[in-house]
């Protein structure tokens, strides 16, 4: 399979892997917009993310088997075409069920392309070890960049553009792979190798699933906190969460200095756990306070994901099947994380919203503002809350217009700040149990990491 130009093919394969794995997180920052545009609930919109990851988890290993039976070139090319077509359907979807269905089809195509890519890469880069490194790096880059790119596109264009822009990229990536597909048609398939498939590395894949659940929690919850809780714009939130991939780059520089995959995986899990626990105990609703935890999580995810992927693939053939298992484990972890955390988070935000509104009402009642002003305020706040049922309310407009009397004006401004403080407290506190559960998952991942034997490539 060394025909054609290997370099464009490597770039195309890396692009395909990065594009598909970015898709598991790229919509994170668009979820609040989708949530509003399609008039759904937090639990409903989560399925835009869950459906993709669930199908990826279920389809990765069968897709790898298909790649080995039908030929990785053909599988990757068809997978990318399906991914592009489904991306187009996502971009024009006007209802949540249509969007979710298109996401499922997108994941089917994506699973085929990603696992087939791992089968194609050794021929282009010279060795299985090098292929695994390129494959893991492309996937990690895509996953890390996904939320920021998605946030930028949502803010600058629309959430639909996230899917539409993938169509030409997927088709461009498919072009160099078509040459391999033609070659396969001419030479036949190595079906006998199927019999030599070894068992997957259970502990490494289990740890991957647990740590992926924790990382999904970190990304999904942090974005929701920034946009829905603290009212940042998607572009603002995208800039904030860019800290995580930047820190991941730092982690990727640290990784090669430590040969032990077990130590890197253990340290990475501890970093992720510490970052998530810190997010659970934010002492104030300030964006700057999310940066140190994000740095820990970014460094940690880079260390732990690469170490566990190396361990899961190390010395195992065929690579596509074991790559399929790692994809399956990672995406299953994301699904478990989202499904376990969303109900907790949804219930908590409703409760904290009530507590915050009660605390804010107490501040207004106990103030010495003219009762007539209080009544007006109470009515406007009531209207505001009714219009934003179930969400963290924007309270500022309820205080407009401000009284003309300077003394009364200053009292009302003080009240607005105190009420906003209570809402910030409520919104921030609502995320604490979910972040803590994420930290616990990362901590528990230390068990399979500790039990696994050291495997070096």
């Amino acid at each position: 399979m060394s025909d054609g130009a290997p370099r464009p093919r490597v770039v195309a394969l890396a692009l395909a892997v990065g594009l598909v794995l970015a898709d598991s997180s790229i919509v994170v920052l668009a979820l609040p917009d989708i949530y509003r545009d399609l008039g759904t609930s937090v639990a409903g919109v989560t399925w835009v993310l869950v459906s993709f990851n669930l199908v990826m988890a279920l389809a990765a290993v069968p897709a790898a088997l298909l790649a080995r039976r039908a030929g990785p070139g053909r599988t990757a090319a068809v997978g990318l075409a399906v991914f592009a077509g489904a991306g187009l359907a996502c971009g024009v979807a006007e209802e949540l069920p249509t969007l979710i269905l298109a996401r499922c089809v997108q994941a089917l195509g994506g699973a085929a392309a990603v696992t087939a890519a791992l089968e194609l890469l050794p021929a282009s880069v010279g060795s299985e070890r090098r292929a695994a490194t390129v494959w893991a790096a492309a996937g990690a880059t895509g996953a890390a960049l996904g939320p920021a790119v998605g946030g930028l596109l949502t803010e600058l264009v629309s959430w639909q553009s996230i899917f539409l822009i993938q169509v030409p990229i997927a088709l461009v990536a498919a072009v160099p792979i078509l040459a391999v597909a033609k070659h396969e048609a001419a030479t036949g398939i190595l079906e006998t190798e199927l019999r030599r498939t070894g068992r997957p590395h259970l502990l490494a894949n289990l740890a991957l699933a647990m740590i992926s659940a924790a990382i999904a929690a970190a990304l999904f919850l942090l974005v929701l906190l920034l946009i829905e809780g603290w009212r940042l714009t998607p572009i603002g939130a995208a800039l904030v969460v860019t800290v995580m991939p930047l820190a991941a780059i730092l982690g990727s520089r640290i990784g090669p200095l430590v040969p032990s995959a077990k130590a890197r995986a253990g340290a990475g899990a501890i970093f992720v756990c510490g970052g998530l626990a810190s997010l659970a105990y934010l002492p104030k609703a300030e964006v700057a306070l999310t940066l140190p935890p994000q740095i820990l999580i970014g460094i940690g995810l880079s260390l732990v994901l690469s170490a566990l992927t190396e361990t899961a693939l190390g010395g195992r053939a065929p690579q596509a099947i074991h790559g399929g298992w790692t994809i399956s484990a990672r995406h299953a972890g994301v699904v478990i994380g989202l499904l376990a955390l969303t109900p907790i988070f949804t219930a908590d935000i409703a409760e904290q919203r009530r507590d915050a509104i009660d605390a804010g009402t107490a501040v207004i009642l106990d103030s010495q503002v003219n009762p007539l002003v209080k009544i007006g305020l109470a009515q406007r706040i009531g209207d505001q809350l009714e219009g934003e049922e179930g969400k963290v309310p924007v309270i500022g407009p309820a205080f407009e217009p401000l009284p003309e009397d300077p003394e009364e004006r200053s009292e009302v401004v003080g009240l607005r700040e105190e009420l906003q403080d209570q809402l910030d407290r409520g919104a921030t506190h609502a995320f604490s149990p979910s972040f803590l559960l994420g930290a616990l998952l990362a901590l528990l991942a230390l068990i399979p990491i500790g039990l696994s034997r050291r495997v070096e490539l």
Partner: protein
Amino acid sequence: MSPALRAQVLVGAAIVSAAALVGIYLAAGGSSYEPEQVQDPCQQRAWSNPQSLGEIANQFSISALDGAACQLGVSREELAQALATPEGRERFTERYGIDDEELARAIRAGLLRAIDDAEEAGALSPLIGGPLRSTVEGIPLDQAVELINNARSIFGGVDGLLGPAADLLEELLP
């Protein structure tokens, strides 16, 4: 540095940095950053020293809300939100399965408690308290809600229920 030592340093650095960040956030109040808890409405709330009719009216409204909320078994704040708009009131009565008559009874009870509190605090003379009680005991729901929202109308408004009593009240102010 040997590979084994590098591994130990990396794991050690992870433990120290994770523990330090969590510790710093906890020390800065991370475990208590949540909305303040509201007070039980059945507990007596201390009257501040009112300096004007407006302040007395304010205290009176708060006491009345406390009394009504205590009677209904809800927080003062939830009741205040419910009484702010007719829609809020409807949602409230639906949620707790109470009718307008029960709500009116609770608000009347709250207003009576407020009169007691005002008398105890020395902000209201028994000369005014007596007639106020008689008035409050018979008022319909809408008027009771209006009174709880704006107690000033009891004390000082031209259209207030007591009219001349407001002058007396002004004289009783510190």
